[in-house]
């Protein structure tokens, strides 16, 4: 299957390198605005929960990072698959650069989950279905990163990683479902206050801001990481040599 020409043009590293600088700056600005709004709304404006008190506020970090952890894995697998099939360098770069960010969000979700769990459940760790799935997801991320660092050749690493990510993405629903089943059987469904659907609007709006902030944070860090990866990938290309030469940067 052939892709339309404009995709290849956009996928060309040089074009992307120029565009991404501009893009990452604007996205970063949006990110900062959303963060400020979200944090102010969540920590100051939103009322305390009638049951959980102020400790529910950690949800403004926990929920978006949990969402992002899954979302970034999907980005990684899809980008990896595109790189594998159509051999687009940019897709490989996106997949590779996403992994550490995704792993960080997963870690953040776990840590915030544990912090929230301490006052709620009385212990740092409970074998709750969500937390357990999140932990396995972290293992998948770490496996991907470990595999990446074991290769010398970046392109081979990216393509091998793509296969692992695709295997992972097929597995994630199975893992999620099995863990859900397992935890309900072992301890009865844990009622998580976090996914109570009737969340008040004054709590919800800051949450949406935070989600947007996390998303834009991901995009702008991804762009920055991808830019430096591109330079490493393309260190033989004439435009990189020119760029480095004109900035008086020594290799």
């Amino acid at each position: 299957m052939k892709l339309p020409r404009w995709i290849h043009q956009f996928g060309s590293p040089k074009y992307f390198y120029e565009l991404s600088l501009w893009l990452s700056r604007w996205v970063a600005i949006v990110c900062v605005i959303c963060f400020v709004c979200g944090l102010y709304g969540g920590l100051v404006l939103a009322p305390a929960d009638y049951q959980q008190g102020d400790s529910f506020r950690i949800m403004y970090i926990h929920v978006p990072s949990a969402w992002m952890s899954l979302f970034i894995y999907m980005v990684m697998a899809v980008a990896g698959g595109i790189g594998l099939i159509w051999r687009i360098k940019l897709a490989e770069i996106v997949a590779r650069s996403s992994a550490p960010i995704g792993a960080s969000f997963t870690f953040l979700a776990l840590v915030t989950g544990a912090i929230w769990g301490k006052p709620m459940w009385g212990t740092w760790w409970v074998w709750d279905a969500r937390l357990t799935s999140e932990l396995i997801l972290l293992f998948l991320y770490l496996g991907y990163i470990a595999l990446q660092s074991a290769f010398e050749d970046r392109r081979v690493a990216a393509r091998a990683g793509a296969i692992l990510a695709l295997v992972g993405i097929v597995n994630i629903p199975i893992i999620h479902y099995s863990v859900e089943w397992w935890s309900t059987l072992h301890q009865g469904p844990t009622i998580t206050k976090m996914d109570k659907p009737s969340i008040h609007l004054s709590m919800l709006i800051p949450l949406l801001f935070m989600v947007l902030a996390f998303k834009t944070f991901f995009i702008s860090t991804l762009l920055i990481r991808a830019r430096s990866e591109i330079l490493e990938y393309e260190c033989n290309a004439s435009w990189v040599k020119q760029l480095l030469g004109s900035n008086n940067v020594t290799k």
Partner: protein
Amino acid sequence: MREYLNIFFVILRRDLILAFRNKAELINPLMFFVIVIVLFPLAFGSDSALLKQLTSGIIWVTALLATCLSLETIFRSDFEDGSIEQFSLSRYPLTLLVSAKILAHWMTFSIPLIVIALFTGIVLSLSSQTISALFITLLLGTPVLSLIGAITVALTIGLRGGMLLSLLILPLYMPILIFSMLAIQNAAVGQSITAELYFLAGILVLAITLAPIATAAALRIRLS
């Protein structure tokens, strides 16, 4: 079609012959399996009620670890002596050839493993329902372990760091462990285990369909 069947059996036969000539590689992971199972009574005491509860879980977890160890060699020598290169350049799909190799691994490693596991179950006086559930889950689960394992082995072959393989495989094995143990626990209290078995069978079908393709793709990447 006949041609494809023929090459499938040629490769299967080749791997079976190789496995039986290299007995150490065949037996060592099985020995590991037995020895690790013996460790648990030593740790928890011989007649504790706790141990009885844990036995089937211990057998399953040890089976995962032993599979992990035994898989390491599935492609290694073929990769080193250029057989994989020849496979990938033959006129037959690499997916087919790889499937034959995976089947050979399952036959030479997992079948003895299942037999030993059942024997262990009987010796450690598990109830007959538990043993039959153990048998069925191992029968449905171990092919998946070989299939998923083959992908990760193909990805990590010849890379430095032997632990890498286990790091990649074990998270992918978790659903199999969970469903199998749920089935065994249900069987022990006399409940129906069809739901779990359907799930295991579903995963098996999925793995049979997709894993050889992914393994072949991974091997091609590793050849470049």
